[in-house]
């Protein structure tokens, strides 16, 4: 039984143009934890997420998911374990209808027709979007798109869920229902976001990234209430902590 562990050990990554995006990242996320990743623009949050399922490979250091170390060979296996939800749902929903899109992952896993349908129904039900299944993505609103994007990842039944700015472009109500939804997931969750209130609501632990390295790692409530530290890192207190 593999435990749903995500471990980064001394991970460095340099883009081909020479940008040092990650400079020795270390952390370990254990089974069932939900962790917020915050940091200024360009601090390396997205690069970090792209390492989690092997889209980018570390220049040096190791990434371990469960009991597998990320290499060219284990990439496929790791992609089944880690579901990534992208910031822009248009990039994620590439199939012509919602149903086809959610079915894409399970079909690629080689499942038979009946179980694919069952998976799709379950995943869409989870995000309350069953009624949308025959629609093409371009006729959906932004909130609906991001719900479907989550469903398309959930249909793969990943052990670990990673999300990049899940609440960007959502109106307050859709954002709130997203937060409620995220709280119901029992997966290990890794959420990169600038929405500090969301992190505070959903994640008990928070990792702060600054210039490609971990600058703080601890309980969200503690880190996100340290005004001086947050401001040092181009962040600010979550709105719920700001007295008016």
């Amino acid at each position, binding site marked *: 039984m593999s435990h749903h562990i995500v471990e980064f050990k001394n991970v460095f990554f340099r883009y081909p143009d020479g940008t040092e995006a990650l400079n020795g990242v270390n952390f370990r996320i254990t089974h069932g934890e939900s962790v917020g990743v915050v940091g200024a623009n360009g601090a390396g949050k997205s690069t970090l997420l792209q390492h989690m399922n092997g889209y980018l490979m570390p220049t040096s250091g190791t990434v371990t998911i469960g009991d597998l170390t990320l290499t060219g060979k284990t990439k496929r296996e790791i*992609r089944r374990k880690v*579901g990534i939800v992208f910031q822009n749902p248009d990039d994620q929903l590439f199939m012509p209808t919602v149903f086809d899109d959610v079915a894409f992952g399970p*079909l690629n896993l080689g499942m038979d027709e009946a179980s694919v349908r069952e998976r799709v129904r379950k995943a869409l039900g989870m995000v309350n979007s069953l009624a949308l299944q025959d629609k093409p993505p371009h*006729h959906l609103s932004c909130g609906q798109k991001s719900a479907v994007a989550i469903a398309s990842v959930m249909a793969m039944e990943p052990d670990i869920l990673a999300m990049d700015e899940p609440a960007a472009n959502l109106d307050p109500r859709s954002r709130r229902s997203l937060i409620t939804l995220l709280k119901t997931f029992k997966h290990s969750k890794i959420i990169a976001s600038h929405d500090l209130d969301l992190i505070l609501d959903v994640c008990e632990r928070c990792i702060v990234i600054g210039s490609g390295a971990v600058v703080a790692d601890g309980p969200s409530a503690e880190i996100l209430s340290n005004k001086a530290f947050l401001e040092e890192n181009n962040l600010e207190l979550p709105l719920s902590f700001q007295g008016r």
Partner: protein
Amino acid sequence: MTFDEKYFDIGRLDRLSYRDTCVHHLDPRAKVIATMLFLITVISFPKYEVVALAPFFLFPVLLMTLGEIPVRFIVKKVIAVSPFAIFIGIFNPFLDIRPVAVILGVPISGGWLSFLSIILKFALTVSAALLLIATTSFPGVCHALRRLGFPALFVSQLLFLYRYLFVLMEEAMRIIRAREMRSFGSRGTGVKVFVRLIGILFLRAVDRAERIYYAMLSRGFQGDIPDLKRSRIAFRDLGFMAMTIAFLAVFRFFPITERIGRVAQELFR
């Protein structure tokens, strides 16, 4: 028509395919095959043929009526692309001046006949293709092609074309709006800026393509877009194909219209 209006118009063809009629319920493969046969038959007529083409309008008209597709919509679309056909045929009347018939005392040259024939063939083929999409939906047609044995790569390109046409247009719309807001009624300093806008659109598209590919990999993509077999060829699909083939064969190989004309002449003599 402004860019925005055009954009929202494209979505309409799409929405038509959500309807619930007997034509929409036919198996996409049956419709694709029928439409292909129809196109081939229409194109196979010799270049001076006009009269024999007329009965072929029955096919699109029937599909349109049974499929509850608004006539005006299809006619408008056909007119919108007609310049292509007109330019192909426009010089025929000047090049081919051999008179072939006399109608009401006016001699008609072969060029006019072939021009008319081109226009008719064009109207028939384009309306049939539009109706195929309006009653089947674009993805439906793509999946049908895949299951009929077209190469996977070709079909996935078509699917992406369709999916991202809308996204790309929205992107273009945003760029054009941004330009208009700061060009104060003038044409945004012309071609030079326009060329750059196209460049930016291209770069954004490349970036997006990369992100999409990443998304596909994340969900186990291995080169072929899988599809669920959601329809089976039923008896009515075979019936539809048989009827289409019979209809096409009869009007292609027997000069029905001519005979009807002859009979009418006899009656009124």
